[in-house]
């Protein structure tokens, strides 16, 4: 009984460890990220912020996208290649996922738009 529990527990723990290793990332707001920039440069990260109005440059032919992700006080430039989610526009909340590049630009693997509220539409 005890051995069984140990084996199962060990197995589950081992699998979880392996799975976590390959998929984890720190989650920051833009401002927190800027404050810890040096400490986290080698980790994979998810950063939440707003798309700064007027900063979006999209090259459809190359599927290239650059924009500035803004927090309350600081901001960070983001570069991304690929398809952009449906509701991606300026001045919305997004989460970018990737690593800090050499030149200080955040190289995003994915850009997730947050439905401001999944079910609700703000009344103006």
């Amino acid at each position, binding site marked *: 009984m005890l051995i069984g529990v140990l084996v199962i527990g060990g197995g589950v723990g081992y699998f979880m460890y392996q799975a976590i290793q390959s998929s984890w*990332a*720190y989650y920051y707001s833009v401002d927190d990220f800027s404050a810890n920039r040096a400490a986290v440069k080698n980790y994979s990260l998810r950063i939440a912020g707003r798309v700064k109005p007027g900063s979006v440059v999209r090259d459809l032919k190359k599927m290239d996208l650059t924009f500035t992700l803004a927090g309350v006080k600081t901001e960070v430039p983001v570069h991304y290649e690929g398809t952009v989610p449906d509701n991606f526009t300026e001045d919305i909340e997004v989460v970018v996922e990737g690593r800090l590049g050499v030149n200080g630009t955040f190289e995003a693997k994915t850009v997730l738009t947050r439905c401001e509220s999944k079910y609700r539409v703000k*009344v103006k």
Partner: protein
Amino acid sequence: MPELGHFAILLSLFLSGYAIVIDILGSLRKDPGLIKSARNATIACLGCLSVAMVALWVLLVKSDFAVVYVAEHTSRALPFAYKFSALWAGSAGSLLLWSWLQVGFVVLVYCKSEFRHRRFSAHARVFANLVGFFFLIILTSDRNPFELSVVAAADGGGLNPLLQHPAMVLHPPILFVGYAGFLIPFAWAFGRLTTNQEDDGTALLKQAQRWTLFAWLFLTGGIVLGAWWAYEELGWGGYWAWDPVENSSLLPWLTATALLHCFRTYKPRFAIATWTILLSILTFSLCIFGRFLTKYGLVSSVHAFSSPGLGILYIVLLINVWVIAGILLVRRYMLTKSSAADSVVPNLRFIIVNNWLMLILAFVIFVGTLFPFLSKVFIKVVRSFSSQSVTPLAPITLAPEFFTKITAPGGLILLLLIGLCPHLLRHGFSKSWRIILAVIAVALALMVWLFTCSLDTTRPSDISGIIGWWGRWLLSGSATIPCFIICGFMLINIIVDFVHYEMKATANKKTGSTSPRNLRWYGSRIVHLGIAIMFIGIAGSGGYATEKNAALKPGEKTDIAEYELTFDALRAEHGRNFTAVTADISVYKGEQLIVRLKPAKAFYHASQKTVSEIDVRRTLGSDLYLALTEVDKGRELINLHIMIKPLINWIWIGSFVMVLGGLIVLFSSHRRKMTIQQNKGKDIEWAI
């Protein structure tokens, strides 16, 4: 009208509180008059909530934009069906619907005037109403659907265009019927714990079992509808993203599946009985927890939600529930002296293995979902012990790959077991060692074969490397082929089982012994068949999907797999509440035109939102899935997301088969109930 609705909710809050107090008093004093009064109060509570529902519906359909909820979820131009379904499109409305369903089910089950179960019903009602009471407090104070705005809006904001889809009209209420339905086994469990009457409970037990199945069916249907909606509407080609919102509906599904298997072997005064009670409480607790998680943003989700508000009340409720449950379970343990060993219970081994698997899966998904929260707490604790800041203080999130990797091995073992079970049930555990050995041998051979296939690049040299490699292999996408093989094994076993059963039935007929056709048996096998079919779809669409992005000008071509796609032209379309840009795409296979697809991008006026409308060519073999992701300003260039999803339709077919099987079981147990009522007094078999 809004005043009436608000008043009705307040009154129902009062009534449910009254019912709780009076039920407790009545049970303590053994006063039938009081219990009757509490019962009537519960029924009146349902009446009040019904009035509130109708009031909200009238407001929504009449487009009374003085009410905040109406203005936020509808607009004048919205089609009638969506105005109607806006009742559950928002947090407040959906909570009202859930509360209404809960009270409705309690009235159906525990407010009958049968004398026999009066005491039990009173006890069960106390706990059911307690949950309802908490929900109504949140509804009246925090999420009042009848709140009036200071200045009435001229037109509403409209329903989120993503939700304007038939699947999304049905998905929430179906899911809520499932969640609310689990209140019945939950109340049953507490009734069982507080009354401690075991012998009188066959009918009550069967009732709880039937309601669990009923709720399970709706939950299954709701989850699948949600997945289908994601596939049809969100335009990324997937159906499941392991988002906290999705996970929170999967968790009670897993425990409910375990619970269904437990009910089959329930025996009073055995350990399995306590276990069943625990699972019943756990399942409904996870429903409440899911509500808390999705509506109050403990962990950040792609679905961002509104302010925390009184969401903490859900946690207060859960703590209350588990403290009471803990006390009652200890009391039960002290009172009952287990006289017989559990080994008498038939098929217990399978149930234990099934339960362990389900719970482990639920546990890892639970941990994964809460990981951002847990890791932050953990890092904080570690930091408070050491002065150096080794790790940055930030929550750690896990990518969806975590879940696919962690659930793949568990899912495979589960499939293997479902495949083995019919054989084991027929021949018994000890006689089946040959087939178990054979299965293990085949599994090992398969692993070795796959291992040698991929030796060249990834060969690890030392022992620890090899073990690590195995771990990664099991977790990686290469689980697809084993999944196919196991599904095939399952299908063969289930078919063999069917044939065997038919032969036995014919043989019995010949010898003259009466063995009525057991619909229930068929139903449960059909559910398992559905799971096998579904997993073929999951493995196929996950393992062999191909996708590409193409930027195209009119007249340009691109190809994927055996298809060649030509972008013909862009055109504008006008709907009642949207304008759309549609791209005409001709799909050729060889020289032959096989289909014209029309993916579009629609702009919804009321909500000022753009949504891409996908177009799919469906076949049983694979789907060709097109999403128009972007159109440039000059309307010269479009960006197309093209995907081939093999076997994906088998997921929907499999889940349909699953629900069908479940319905057969539900129907057969209903018929069984009739026979039991006819044979009252005769000895009735417990386990089937």
